[in-house]
């Protein structure tokens, strides 16, 4: 494990912010267990819990907390200086941090979704949801990590993207779906395990190509921004 990833992981788990990650995944599992125990048919609760809550809220919000945390919190508290004053090409700082963000997000989201998918339908659906959320973790993490280098309010901007663009506009303006990570994730999960609970709105090739483009593009953006990272004096 590289020193950067080690520092990043220690920083992530060492902050209280990390506790924010726990309630949402627990909520997904809790709701699935509750519905199962009460004997409600999965056709009633599967969609809302797996997609409405799991893929549309838990995945992006966890990715947002982690993705803006791996670099953003170091920028906020100034510890980034210790990492930047090293003779490292900047991609060697961005990539390990991105890897930690993807790994933590994927694990945090995939496990509860797998459990909920198994409870709702089958192991196959569980695996499909886990795999799709891991793919989504890649795109979201790259996006939110880059956001923390582009703006001083990455969390706010990220929430606007998730809630307004994906959540609101995605439901009413069909054109926005082509630029929505959530739609790619749903499409990929639906492709692996087709069920009535998931409804794909974009094609599989579009989903894959767009995911790759978003991940690569925002990673490149993050590296470029870190290369010209400026520190303002206390007076400005």
């Amino acid at each position: 494990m590289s020193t950067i990833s080690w520092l990043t992981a220690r920083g992530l788990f060492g902050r209280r912010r990390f506790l924010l990650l726990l309630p949402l995944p627990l909520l997904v599992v809790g709701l699935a267990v509750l519905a199962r125990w009460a004997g409600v048919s999965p056709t009633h609760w599967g969609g809302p819990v797996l997609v409405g809550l799991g893929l549309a809220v838990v995945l992006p919000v966890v990715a947002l907390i982690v993705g803006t945390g791996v670099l953003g919190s170091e920028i906020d508290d100034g510890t980034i200086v210790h990492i930047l004053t090293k003779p490292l090409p900047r991609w060697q700082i961005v990539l390990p941090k991105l890897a930690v963000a993807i790994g933590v997000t994927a694990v945090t989201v995939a496990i509860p979704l797998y459990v909920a998918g198994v409870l709702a339908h089958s192991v196959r659906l569980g695996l499909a949801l886990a795999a799709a959320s891991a793919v989504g973790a890649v795109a979201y993490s790259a996006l939110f990590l880059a956001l923390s280098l582009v703006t001083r309010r990455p969390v706010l901007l990220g929430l606007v993207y998730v809630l307004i663009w994906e959540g609101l506009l995605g439901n009413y303006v069909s054109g926005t779906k082509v630029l929505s990570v959530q739609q790619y994730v749903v499409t990929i999960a639906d492709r692996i395990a087709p069920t009535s609970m998931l409804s794909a709105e974009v094609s599989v090739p579009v989903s894959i190509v767009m995911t790759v483009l978003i991940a690569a593009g925002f990673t490149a953006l993050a590296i470029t921004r870190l290369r010209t990272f400026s520190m303002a004096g206390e007076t400005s």
Partner: protein
Amino acid sequence: MTTVDLSGVSRWYGNVVAVNDISMTLGPGVTGLLGPNGAGKTTLLHMMAGFLAPSRGTVTLDGAPTWRNPDVYRRLGLVSEREAVHTFLTAYEFVLASARLHRLPDPEDAARRAIELVEMAPAQDRRIGTYSKGMRQRTRVAAALVHDPQVLLLDEPFNGMDPRQRLHMMELLHRLGDAGRTILFSSHILEEVEQVSGTVQVIVAGRLAASGDFRTIRRLMTNRPHVFAVHSSDDRRLAVALMAEPSVTGVEIDRTGLTVRAGDYGSFTRALPKVALASGIRVRRLLPSDESLESVFSYLVEA
């Protein structure tokens, strides 16, 4: 020998000029960067450390630009003003991480040596979060020194330190400078610079106001004209008596009292009580009216 060269460096933020056409060369030894708060010291240091692009001019380390050039950190260490440390690490872990990121051949040994240099060995296994401000500062210096850089830049390293920690840090900087390293530290406190460095660069309002040997600059500062506000039981008579004093270069009188210009601080303050006593005048108030550091600095700019 490593030198930092600034040539015609300016930096502005929108319409505000933070650093204005500064040229200087820093060589081995300790140099103090002196200036009042807001003079542009941090901006200048950030440009030297490659954390800010000059709007105009060049900042180079041995000929290589510091901006967008992470390679300079092989020879440069920075201790920034913000007291930012990974509080969840111990000092040893923190310095070791720095050594690893520098890809040093023997990071453990380098970390231990750097920690010993700043005398933090007894506390090195405690979390940084439990340290005092001075200990944190020393830990940050150790991390900045772990790769044995030729150039060390420190932004206000004495801020918030108690006198003992201050002394300790001063000794450390002395030792590093004597060993042939190029050390630059910024400060807004005259006495700090006086005790640590022989050469100073004084910046005021973004401009280089004075540069060179500290004693020369200090003499300029003490010998400058001083202005005092005096209020007494009989201002007019006191004014007449004061004009006879060689140390007084001018007296103004108005409703609030006297404004006395003196050529030299010491002789005027010694003369005033004698003059007042001899003429039977009671001095009610004596205020040096321009003793702020800013006025000292602005005098330097005009000189």
